[in-house]
Each structure stands twice: as C-alpha cells, then as structure tokens.
C-alpha cells in the first residue's frame, strides 16, 4: 500500500500557488487527554458526531464562511431526508449513501446486534474545514461536549471528512 495522501502538504502547495502565507495547522505535541472506557461496549451509550456537512431537510444548511454551527439529527431520522453540503470534498457518494460520512444506520445496526448498548437519541453534525481553530476550541467543541454530557453519553464515534 502506498503512502497516505499528505493533505497538509497539498494545502501548503495550494496556498503558495495562490500567493498566500501558509495555513498554520494546529500542532499538539503534548499527550492528548485520555479517558479509559469504564464499561463494556454492549452496555455503553454511543453518540455519533460527523463533520461531513450533513443536515436534515427542514434544517438550515451549512454555509461556506467559517460556519461553526452544528445540527442535531435524531437517531430515528428518515434517511431519505438527509442532505449533504460541503466545500472541500466530492459530495457524489455522500449524497448517494450518507453512511459513508455519517454512519448512523451502520451504528444502529451494530446496536441492534448487541455490539453497543444503545445509540444516543441524537447525533450531531457540522461542516469541517473551519479555518479558525480558535473558534472550534472556544465555540463548537464546548457546545458539543455540553450536549454529550447532558445526554449522559459513554463514548463518541467521531467521523471527520
């Protein structure tokens, strides 16, 4: 298998090509916070958070100017009402089968088969590619953390694009 695509390098080249200063990616050298699992998966409440730009028909879609908002998607959503919008990737397959960026059906199947205890009543979605890491750290991440705490979630599956 060949080396992974280096998207940091690609962005650096693109910005240089456009005459922009390099994007300053966040670099965390420090060890990340780490919470061990406290109970078996089959007894855990699992939340899905995905940044592929998924919204539900009837909700306001994401916009392309550093959108740090999020949407709440109930686990019993009609899959036919899922929509996808994003500026940074080819949406063809996500619009055909949202599970490729928002694996809610897949997770519900695993819960049905007993691999996890239950799927949280709500999944949360946003649109990644947010330029300002500060706004993610100060606005979006605290809001999502508060939701998952209030939902008494045990663990979260995070699906960026």
């Amino acid at each position, binding site marked *: 298998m060949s080396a992974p695509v280096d998207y940091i390098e690609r962005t650096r080249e693109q910005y240089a090509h456009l005459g922009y200063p390099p994007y300053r990616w966040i670099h965390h050298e420090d060890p990340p916070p780490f919470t061990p699992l406290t109970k078996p998966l089959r007894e855990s409440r699992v939340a899905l*958070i995905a940044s592929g730009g998924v919204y539900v028909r009837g909700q306001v879609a994401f916009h392309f100017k550093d959108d740090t908002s999020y949407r709440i998607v109930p686990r019993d959503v009609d899959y036919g009402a899922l929509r996808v919008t994003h500026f940074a990737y080819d949406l063809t397959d996500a619009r055909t089968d949202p*599970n490729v960026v928002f694996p809610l059906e897949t997770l519900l199947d695993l819960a049905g088969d007993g*691999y996890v205890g239950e799927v949280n009543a709500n999944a949360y979605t946003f649109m990644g590619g947010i330029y300002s890491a500060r706004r993610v750290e100060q606005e979006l991440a605290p809001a999502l953390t508060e939701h998952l705490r209030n939902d008494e979630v045990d663990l979260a599956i995070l699906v*960026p694009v």
Partner: protein
Amino acid sequence: MGLVARQLEAAGIATICLSSAESITRAVNPPRAVFIDFPLGHTAGKPGDKAVQRAILMDALEALETISEPGTIRPLPYRWSDDDSWKQSAQRSDGDDRVSRTDEPQYQFPEDREAAEAARQQ
C-alpha cells in the same frame, strides 16, 4: 474533529476518531484514531457497501476498547481499489479549486430552502 475529541476526553467521554487524512490527524493528535486510506468523503466506507461500512465501524469500536497509548493512530487494512492511482490526483494542488466563501446556506436542493423557511415560521 481532533480538537472536539480532546475536549470530550477531558470531560470524561471516551472517543474514537475515524480519519482519512493521516497527516492532519497526526498534527491535531487526538486520543485514539483509526486510519482509513480512502479518498476524502468516504471516511466511513464505500457507498452501498454495507459490509465494509460495518467492518470499519466494528474495527473503530475495537480500537476504542484496545488502544491504551494516548495518541495512537491505528491503520485499518481496507483498500479503495486494487491500485492507488486515486492518490495521485488527490495529492495534486494545481489550480484554484476553492469555492467562494459566503454565509449563504448551501442547500443540496432548492426546495430544502423552502422547507427550512417553513420550519422556521412554525
């Protein structure tokens, strides 16, 4: 998403990140990650392929259970295609493929806008 993961873990919620952008995930350094070597837009699998979608999610859950070293990125064995030719165009950065940055909601279908406005008025 790694920044979200770090705050969730700090709040006592265990996380697993799926990733198809290894260098970005390495830079953000989330607590636990699995790497899926697919083109962007397919972090959780191939369209219509329930078997691989399920396998990726089960592997992610297993990684959540078994990773004990904070910052581990575990590669998963799935391949997008028999050859890796998709990576050549994915790595290229020639040309300006940006879309304009506007705060207008970008609806998939025009009628989604009407549905959202109707919902707002209720």
